[in-house]
């Protein structure tokens, strides 16, 4: 057995992962705060005012990273679901369950900030643009995943059913994205396209990257925190949990 698989198997058990997650979580939380401060400093103070959009464009420093994270977290969720189904590990399914609320929050945040940006720029809170529509459908997929898990009492069944749904969803995400995109061009709905945004200044890109990294660290910290709670709840009958809590 190689070193990597040894470490992997060692921490696949909730009882060994729980303290590791506890140690890692504050570091990621601190990293998220620091990166967010740096990102906001670049985004709100250093970055120049946009020639066409004025100060209002600055919401993209939250909007774009939130959209990235909402899509990325769904893929990570599907990854852990696949691991959970194929290796029958409890921890992988718990990770998928812990990631879903954060992903849904980012999808919602992306829609909300998009609406705030759209009103002054496009003059409308909502347009049926391909990206907006597929982000909305992604939010529905997250909500479906969480609703299915909440409806099943037996945690093992909830894990597996949720895993299948996440995998079906991740296969469908590209199909949904392209169908919505073609539907949009057929209808020629939104006259303004996000694709045609002018090339970005380097400082703007830097701000966006810093914020994306901050959201990344935040997602890790939040899901570790949540997975620790799930571990405690699920393993509450075991001796090590009672020792850990006592």
């Amino acid at each position, binding site marked *: 057995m190689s070193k990597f698989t040894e470490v992997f198997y060692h921490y696949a058990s909730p009882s060994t992962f729980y303290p590791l997650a506890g140690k890692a979580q504050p570091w990621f939380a601190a990293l998220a705060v620091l990166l967010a401060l740096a990102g906001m400093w670049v985004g709100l103070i250093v970055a120049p005012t946009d020639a066409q959009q004025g100060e209002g464009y600055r919401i993209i420093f939250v909007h774009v990273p939130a959209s990235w994270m909402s899509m990325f977290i769904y893929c990570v969720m599907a990854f852990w679901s696949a691991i959970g189904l194929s290796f029958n590990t409890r921890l992988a399914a718990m990770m998928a369950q812990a990631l879903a609320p954060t992903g849904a929050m980012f999808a919602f945040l992306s829609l909300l900030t998009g609406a705030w940006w759209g009103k002054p720029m496009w003059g409308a809170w909502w347009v049926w643009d391909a990206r907006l529509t597929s982000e909305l*459908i992604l939010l529905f997929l997250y909500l479906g995943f969480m609703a299915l898990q909440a*409806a099943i009492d037996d945690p093992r069944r909830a894990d597996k*059913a949720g895993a299948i749904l996440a995998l*079906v969803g991740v296969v469908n995400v590209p199909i949904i994205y392209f*169908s919505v995109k073609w539907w949009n061009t057929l209808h020629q709905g939104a006259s303004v396209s996000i694709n045609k945004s002018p090339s970005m200044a380097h400082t703007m890109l830097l701000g966006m990257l810093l914020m994306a990294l901050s959201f990344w660290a935040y997602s890790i910290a939040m899901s570790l925190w949540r997975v620790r709670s799930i571990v405690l709840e699920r393993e509450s009958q075991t001796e090590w949990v009672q020792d850990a809590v006592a």
Partner: protein
Amino acid sequence: MSPVSAIWVAMRRDLVIAARRRSEILTVLFFFVVVVSLFPLGIGPEAALLRRIAPGVLWVAALLATMLGLPRMFTADHADGTLEQMILSPQPFAFLITGKILAHWLLCGAPLVLLAPLLGLQFDLDGPTLGVLVLALLLGTPLLSLIGAIGAALTLGLRGGGVLLALLVLPLFIPTLIFGAGAVEAYAAGLDAGGHLSLLGAMLVMALFFAPWVTTAALRISIE
């Protein structure tokens, strides 16, 4: 028993059961007709507007009607233990499930395809457009049954399963809706509907391959 006869036996069984309880199937059909008829009443009888919205209205109604028939795909068989016998049987479970999905389409999908031209006439669609509508529904409704079967299997025996099922499968129905309604709209606008129909066909082939397999995995989880 060959795969074809395994599919056939499972399908015929569901059809016979449905033939003895006709009202359930007729309810789904009646729902489709009523929902479609509500739109002109809500929107107004201008022929140009109705022609414009007809593909979307007919497709959304077909989506909802198919979904309404989904819970009964597995519920009764789960309650009386038939599903467990199917898992234990020497025939591959996926073939038996394919038969059940085909039966669901014949009962809840195919009648909609046959009824659609009649309802399309109420929306002032002309002959060739109705033809494209029927063709699109013919490719799209089996796709809805296949995707829906996964959702029906995942929500089997859950509290509030019906509403949850809607939340799970309706987002997955969206590509079918877009290309199905899009084919009719493109044809009505004087464009070629071939692209939309080809994509519907491609999705149907993909779902025909994967959906029964995923459904069996979901059913095993729900039953164990």
